[in-house]
């Protein structure tokens, strides 16, 4: 099998279109994950044991099972109970839910990393619970979380090929469809690899920057 440049150029537009869907799914998924993750984190901190335990089990379950199977579940089984999501929505919900369990751990770690002395100083200056969260804890907890969150964003990006299982035409599905109809696998798959690598390399520099900016704050 020889590399065919002409073929390579001809499939580029289709792949780029796939990339667009990939990026869209990643960003939407990350938004779901970040918000749901905060909800999970707070529910796990809840003094209500039943709530925190149930959330804990749910989070562990989602984290212990493959996203692929969860996607099948959402896409092919949920319609039986009347919940029919479009492929992209199902993908975003599936990825968002799956990664929310990771994000919730990030939130938890970030909150716990704020030194105890800060809670105490807030109490000693007589701030209320809400004022403590808003003015003292979150402003210190969130910046160090940013690199970890960006990392998961990247991980989500790399897992988007799973969405092909639920008929989302992201980059990998496009590549496979091209490959199947032309019987040429090397070019599309290599291009996909290169796209992933380019996005990742850019992100690595972005991450380094984020880490320098937010990672270690003068404590």
């Amino acid at each position, binding site marked *: 099998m020889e590399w065919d440049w002409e073929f390579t150029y001809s499939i580029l537009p289709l792949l780029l279109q796939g990339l667009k869907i990939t990026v869209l799914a990643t960003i939407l998924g990350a938004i779901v994950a970040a918000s749901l993750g905060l909800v999970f984190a707070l529910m796990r901190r809840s003094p209500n044991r039943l709530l925190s335990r149930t959330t804990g089990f749910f989070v562990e379950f989602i984290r212990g099972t493959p996203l692929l199977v969860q996607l099948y579940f959402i896409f092919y089984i949920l319609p039986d109970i009347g919940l029919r999501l479009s492929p992209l929505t199902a993908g975003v919900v599936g990825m968002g839910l799956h990664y929310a369990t990771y994000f919730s751990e990030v939130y938890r770690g970030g909150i716990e990393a704020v030194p105890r002395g800060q809670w105490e100083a807030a*109490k000693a200056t007589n*701030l209320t619970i809400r004022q403590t969260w808003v003015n003292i804890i979150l*402003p210190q907890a969130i910046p160090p979380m940013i690199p970890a969150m960006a990392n998961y964003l990247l991980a989500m990006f790399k897992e988007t090929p799973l969405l092909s299982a639920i008929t989302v035409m992201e980059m990998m599905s496009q590549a496979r469809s091209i490959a199947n109809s032309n019987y040429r696998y090397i070019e599309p798959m290599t291009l996909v690899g290169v796209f992933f690598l380019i996005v990742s390399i850019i992100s690595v520099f972005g991450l380094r920057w984020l880490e320098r900016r937010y990672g270690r704050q*003068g404590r």
Partner: protein
Amino acid sequence: MIRINDLSKSFGKLTVLNGLSFDVMKGEKLALIGPSGSGKTTILRILMTLENISGGRIEVCGEPLFHMHRNGQDVPADEAHLHKMRRHIGMVFQHFNLFPHKTVLQNITLAPTLTKGEKRIDAEKRARELLDMVGLADKADYMPVQLSGGQKQRVAIARALALSPEIMLFDEVTSALDPELVEEVLQVMQRLAVETDMTMLLVTHEMGFAREFADRVLFFDQGRIVEAGPPEQIFQAPQEERTRTFLRKIIASRHGM
């Protein structure tokens, strides 16, 4: 001003304070001394409501601290009651606990604006006066990381004062400082002691300072008051053997053997 009655406190199985009682009068300067682990910090933290109590009763400014009256009965205080009571009390910590993401000025104005609803401009005016008092008028816009330990601790004192508490608690406020920086902090505290009639509780290992500063000294060991009295008595003529041993060790290591 403060009335502690039969106070006890355990952490899990470890009983740190057991049936402790003492009073502090308005304006009194009290020094708590004693060996490591004797419970000095714990008392201050309880007064600041950073720890709950296991038993007994504390009154601050005539009101119970951890209890409140509800339908003629004493019930455990809720957050609202604690919030109200904390107005009377300010605390300065060993490790300063400044808010690292706020400037010096913001550290001081944050609580007054949020909890007392002071106007920003008033709060800042008062903050600058306090900074002036602790000798840091020029550092208002610095971030805490840019300050030396002694400067941080003086900011922490200003922050506590900004809420105008009637009672101030100091927990080994100089022991995280380089020796050269200790003096600047002690000077500020000395000034406070002389110029205001705030009630002050001081935990320290600086015996020299305790002596200058305090009206009364309590010597603790294992969660109990072993000896109490004016500084002259405790330091020059301690009655108890335990007090004598403790002071001898401290003095020995400070002055060579």
